[in-house]
């Protein structure tokens, strides 16, 4: 015969076990996961300026993500690749050994290619906004993603030149991969549309541009001079052009030119010069994402964000969101981050972002800005323009 005391003990035990199981299950959704993400960028060396700018944007993305997403937290580990390919590979390998889930960063297609190759070998997603060379997405790396590309810059430059009605263009470009890619692609497109286009390459170490600008002035006699280089190149070219005064309609550059920093640093060289710009300056952010970005940037760095910060923010945020989704679905260890990135279709500060099978963003189209009275006015495309073009677009 079962005594009353013996009957109640198993029931109490079962009830206690059920209560414990219920409390464990209810705790699980409240568990916050910390994700270790690697940032490999040039913080020193020739590309330090752009690397630090991107780094700031990625940090802001982590800050905003951690604040907005109460369940998950991003912890960034940054390694300086010193603007060299060998150090970029070493940085990726070191980050992998530290157990990062993915890597973001990289600047300069020459440095990104080997770093992305190393990340691919280690089965780590590599997300960047610093490499626009087409070879980056044609190398078959399944873990490589980027939010901008040469085609987007090309469309913007060709759109502006077309709007200007230029009949001839001289292209001065640095022999680095991305600038060469862009310059030759633009030259080909201009020639196909009946515009005479001469291309003049220059070594990145060159400092005196007067011989090449003089050649353009005396031999090419173009309507527009297109510059594809970096900040120090633009300064040298514009200085030489200011001395020689070629009779052109406009001086047009690509990245790193239509920025508030260039306007502040070189006020005599920037007036009426064109360059790519996502936002006017001063910028106003209408979306919640934009406001969060702007506020966090100002709080962290006590200054206004520039295009590098904007790109760094977008690449970081997209990656962090993909990691969080992959974790929630339990696919982190099974290539889930790459899968989630491929499913991404989002409006961001740089426009709509989606990733094609090769990791490229097919929707990327840049905008063209012009320095006008210490501001940057968006002049192309028409639907985003904040003001008209000013002619001649030259600083003399």
């Amino acid at each position: 015969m079962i005594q009353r005391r013996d009957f109640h003990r198993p029931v109490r035990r079962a009830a206690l076990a059920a209560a414990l199981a219920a409390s464990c299950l209810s705790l699980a959704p409240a568990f916050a996961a910390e994700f270790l993400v690697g940032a490999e960028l040039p913080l020193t060396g020739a590309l330090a300026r752009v690397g630090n700018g991107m780094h700031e944007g990625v940090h802001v993305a982590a800050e905003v993500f951690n604040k907005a997403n109460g369940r998950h937290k991003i912890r960034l580990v940054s390694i300086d690749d010193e603007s060299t390919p060998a150090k970029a590979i070493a940085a990726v390998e070191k980050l992998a050994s530290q157990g990062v889930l993915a890597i973001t960063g990289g600047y300069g297609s020459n440095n990104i290619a080997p770093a992305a190759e190393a990340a691919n070998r280690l089965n780590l997603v590599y997300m960047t906004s610093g490499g626009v060379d087409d070879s980056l997405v044609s190398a078959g790396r399944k873990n490589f993603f980027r939010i901008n590309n040469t085609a987007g810059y090309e469309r913007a430059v060709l759109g502006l030149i077309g709007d200007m009605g230029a009949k001839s263009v001289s292209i001065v470009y640095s022999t680095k991969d991305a600038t060469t890619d862009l310059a030759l692609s633009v030259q080909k497109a201009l020639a196909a549309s009946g515009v005479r286009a001469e291309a003049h390459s220059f070594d990145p170490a060159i400092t005196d541009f007067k011989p090449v600008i003089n050649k353009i002035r005396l031999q090419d006699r173009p309507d527009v001079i297109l510059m594809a280089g970096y900040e120090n190149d633009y300064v040298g070219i514009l200085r030489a052009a200011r001395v020689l005064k070629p009779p052109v309609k406009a001086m047009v550059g690509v990245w790193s030119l239509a920025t508030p920093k260039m306007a502040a640093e070189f006020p005599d060289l920037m007036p009426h010069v064109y360059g790519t710009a996502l936002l006017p300056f001063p910028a106003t952010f209408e979306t919640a994402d934009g406001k969060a970005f702007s506020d966090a940037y100002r709080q962290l760095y006590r200054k206004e964000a520039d295009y590098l910060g904007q790109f760094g923010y977008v690449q970081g945020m997209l990656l962090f969101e993909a990691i969080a989704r992959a974790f929630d679905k339990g696919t982190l260890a099974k290539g889930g981050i790459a899968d989630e990135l491929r499913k991404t279709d989002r409006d961001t500060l740089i426009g709509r972002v989606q990733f094609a099978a090769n990791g490229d963003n097919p929707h990327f189209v840049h905008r063209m800005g012009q320095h006008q009275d210490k501001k940057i006015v968006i002049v192309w495309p028409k639907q985003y323009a904040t003001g008209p073009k000013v002619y001649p677009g030259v600083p003399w």
Partner: protein
Amino acid sequence: MTELLLQALYSGLLQGGAYALIALGLALVFGTMKIINLAHGELVLMAAYVAYAAESALGWHPLAAIVLALPATGLTAAGMHWTVSRIRADREINSLLLTFGFAVVLTNGFLMLWSADVHSTSSAWLQDALVLGPLYSMHSEALSFAISLALLAGLWWWLARSWHGRALRAVAANRDCAMLMGIAPGRTELLSFVLAGALAAFAGVALYCHGVIQPALGGALTVKAFIITVLAGLGSIPGVLAAAILLGICEALTVTLASSALQELTGMVLFLVVLFVLPNGLFGTARRRG
């Protein structure tokens, strides 16, 4: 075509003057102590950053910053000499490593102090065009060329006529004999380093006035200075000017007649050709072995 070539020659001449100013300090130390100061480019850059700081923070004209740049580079050069003079064995190789270390420290120091942004003078006059008939340049380039000529002439006179200059040449020729003649080699070598630092100050201020500066520039300046020093020949000050102008003109003609992408290659090819034909440089004298 004539106009194109004339401008190329003129630009090359002015660029050569700028190169000579940068190379002078390295040539002096190399000639006297047989030491290649791999941080020489960073000394030049230090002066350029001092000029930037004076202009941006104090509102000075960049040329006036020379009074700040001189002690900065002079003291740094003295510090470099102090460490180099402590090398007891294999001075030529070990000084390369030591000065390379200095270069890395200085480059990262500039990065920490002034970030990686590019800088240049905002003085309108320095950047305005100087037009001489069909020839164009900036005021700063012509000024830099004039300063370069003046300093080269001054240094050449000082080495030839002053007691300290002759002492320096004596130490370079034979250190032990110089000591026997009552010359203190240690102090003379310190003088050559400090003088190199002072020359770097002028070069750096001139660079800031006509070019663009950023922390990573130092290495490229050192390489250029080294090429010119070797082309000139050991201990030849007039050779520095000739080699620098030759390099500047060859580069400008390459850009004009061929492609700007080949400019740096021209320098290297010239370096190899001259060394092959004249192993002691353009103005160097053969030295007896043993």
